[in-house]
């Protein structure tokens, strides 16, 4: 395990020199009093609360609304660093889409022996999708790729989010907030804009309507106002100028999907859905779900409507599949992977299991299908008792877990109470696919606000930052 003082720092690289990308900003930071920063921070909180940027945390009393803490000190990346990240994530998403098409059609990658047949037993693999053709062979129209940095040149992909990735509203709203709070900084820097994200997304969604539909109707399907990401659903729908619908607003008739409007039924061509596979059609999946649209799957399979993301993408972002992504890139694209995977131990393999069990205090162990930072063990920060409890859990069902070395996530200066301290960060760029695959320069930067914590999830006390891709390097 790395010692605290050896973490890579985005501003100082962990030594006492300012990295060139930060030279101007660090000077500004030095010239700005903590009281000023604090008051900007309070202003931001007030504004966020007024526009209602809150999220519901499951398990909190009466679904209380809470603000995700926002940190006013941005994370800076150079255009060169971004170039590397964007090429790497685009490459990755292209390969993942090809993988999804393949396993729901010819399954060549399995026949070649590059990924095990057992992946098809994964509960996220949807046999209903076998042989179904989706427009442009795109399955993951929206992908969030979580990236962490270890040192100056080493980036890792922590995980791929291909189901209903969230967080993009924070990328957009954080930027808006920063421009409001610090207009002078934006005058001085050329920060790559992110505001066109909704437009790119809408164009992509329109491009994946079934053939022959002119001027397709696109809607965003949300589980409703009590979902933790509802704010984001509403926000994105508004930004794209499309209807935000719930399951009860839609119905299926004669191989088409319609929405109920004050002027009568209106046909829907593309559904940007933010409901999980399990809940999207009570006739096909979870029959007690009240959130979905009965009969949707059969219309979808017949090509009467496009879903984004497609049904069954979960099999490709599963933590058990993750370790095969580099092989996919080589197999489908015939390219070397640009971004690396974190070395991963597959606990369904006896050797990996034994190694993991004897190194629990060094490793991070994750549930294969877990998300949101729940159901995981961070060895170095856990007590002996916690480790022993988790050991029993692993032994009961090793197939359910993977393990990875504890990564020394890079740190970023962060305003904590009234002073600046270093906190660990990650980055989730959003990769969009429709006609082409592209990524808006920026992403959701999550920061672990607890000192020393490596868990950045908002449900576990994480906050967010704006991410600035600087189009050229700046000096003070």
């Amino acid at each position: 395990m790395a010692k605290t003082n050896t973490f890579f720092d985005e501003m100082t690289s962990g030594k006492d020199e300012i990295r060139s990308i930060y030279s101007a900003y660090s000077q500004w930071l030095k010239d700005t009093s903590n009281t000023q920063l604090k008051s900007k921070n309070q202003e931001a909180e007030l504004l966020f609360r007024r526009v209602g940027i809150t999220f519901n945390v499951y398990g909190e009393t009466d679904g209380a609304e809470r603000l995700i803490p926002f940190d006013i000190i941005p994370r800076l990346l150079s255009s060169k660093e971004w170039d590397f990240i964007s090429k790497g994530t685009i490459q990755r998403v292209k390969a993942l889409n090809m993988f999804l098409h393949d396993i729901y059609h010819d399954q060549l990658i399995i026949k070649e022996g590059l990924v095990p047949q057992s992946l098809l037993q994964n509960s996220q693999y949807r046999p209903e999708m076998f042989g179904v053709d989706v427009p442009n062979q795109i399955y993951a129209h929206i992908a969030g790729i979580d990236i962490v940095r270890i040192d100056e040149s080493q980036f890792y992909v922590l995980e791929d989010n291909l189901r209903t990735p969230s967080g993009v509203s924070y990328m957009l709203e954080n930027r808006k907030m920063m421009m409001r709070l610090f207009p002078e900084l934006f005058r001085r820097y050329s920060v790559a804009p992110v505001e066109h994200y909704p437009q790119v997304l809408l164009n992509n969604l329109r491009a994946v309507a079934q053939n022959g539909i002119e001027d397709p109707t696109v809607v965003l399907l949300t589980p409703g106002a009590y979902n933790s990401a509802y704010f984001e659903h509403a926000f994105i729908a508004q930004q794209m100028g499309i209807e935000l619908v719930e399951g009860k607003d839609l119905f299926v008739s004669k191989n088409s999907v319609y929405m109920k409007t004050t002027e009568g039924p209106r046909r829907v061509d593309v559904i940007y859905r933010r409901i999980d596979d399990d809940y999207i059609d009570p006739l096909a999946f979870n029959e007690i779900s009240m959130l979905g649209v009965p009969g949707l799957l059969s219309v979808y399979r017949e090509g009467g409507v496009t879903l984004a993301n497609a049904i069954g993408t979960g099999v490709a972002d599963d933590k058990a599949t993750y370790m095969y992504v580099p092989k996919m890139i080589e197999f489908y694209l015939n390219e070397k992977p640009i971004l690396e995977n974190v070395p991963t131990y597959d606990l369904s393999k006896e050797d990996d299991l034994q190694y993991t069990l004897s190194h629990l205090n060094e490793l991070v162990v994750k549930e294969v299908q877990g998300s949101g930072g729940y159901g995981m063990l961070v060895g170095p920060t856990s007590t002996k008792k916690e480790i022993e409890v988790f050991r029993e859990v692993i032994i009961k069902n090793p197939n359910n877990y993977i393990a990875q070395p504890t990564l020394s996530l890079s740190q970023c200066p962060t305003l904590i109470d009234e002073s600046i301290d270093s906190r660990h960060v990650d980055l989730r760029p959003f990769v969009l696919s429709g006609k082409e695959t592209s990524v808006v320069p920026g992403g959701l930067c999550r920061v672990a606000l607890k000192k020393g914590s490596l868990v950045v999830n908002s449900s576990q006390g994480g906050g967010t930052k704006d991410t600035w891709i600087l189009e050229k390097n700046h000096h003070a």
Partner: protein
Amino acid sequence: MLSRTADHLYWMARYIERAENMARALDVTYNMSLVPNEDITEAMFWSPALEISGTTEIYEKDIGEVTAANVINYLAMDQRNPSSIYSALKSARENAHAVRVTMTTETWESINSIWLEFSQFLKQDFSKKGLREFCDWVKTRSHLFRGVCFGTMLRDDAFNFVRLGTFIERADNTARLLDVKYHLLLPTGQEVGGAVDYYEWSSVLRSVSALQAYQKIFNDTIEPWRVAELLTLRCDMPRSLHACFDEIILILEALSNSKNNEAFRLAGEIHAKLHYGKIKDIFQSGLHEFLSDFIKSNDLIGQEIHKHFLSATY
């Protein structure tokens, strides 16, 4: 637009309007209670406030004894009372929250900040102090909400459903207020006049922001039948039944799916009565009968709006 969205917008506006009217009724009743009047008991004095809001029966069940303190708290803050200011503002916010995507940022912020600011009143006992400030705050917030809608919303169906909710609710409230007050203040065969009557009628007018208008139009002592005329037939009086239906008829006509619906026909029928009616005729056949018919028809329009636009089934 989506039926569900229209439904939420319509009810959001109705609840805001309801909160405002509740605040108006409370405010004037409280004011009147400051005028000495030995002929009337506390219970007699405060019962009409319950009647205007249509909560007499549930009050009986939830609270029982009619006292100033009980009624004030029940109408302002009680969560059991679906028409209390607390419940109305909470429902307005919930409706808004469900469809914020269709609202302008300013509209949402205006309604969300009502709810955020409301928390400062939660612990207050208005029967002791602060009722007037609270009522003023509710009225101001409602004005602001309407102004923000008017000033920022695209003139599309969403806007129309918001306005429709406002005027259906307002027409109902004005009719109830007049009905209860007229009944109460004018027992059969009794002459009007005297200081208490003056205060009573002027407070009725004040509760619908119509006192100055009355003085300007009639420039004379306050006559009950003129108050009735002002609140029913005058189209230039913004809270009158006629004014509400001038708006309702235009909105129903402007809605994209306006053809062949019963709501539009009914509204036209009522509008014609208000437009061509004479106050003398109304009094001849009874103001109370006229108003209860009106309240029923207005309610029926509400139901037809639901059937035709808001809960469309196919």
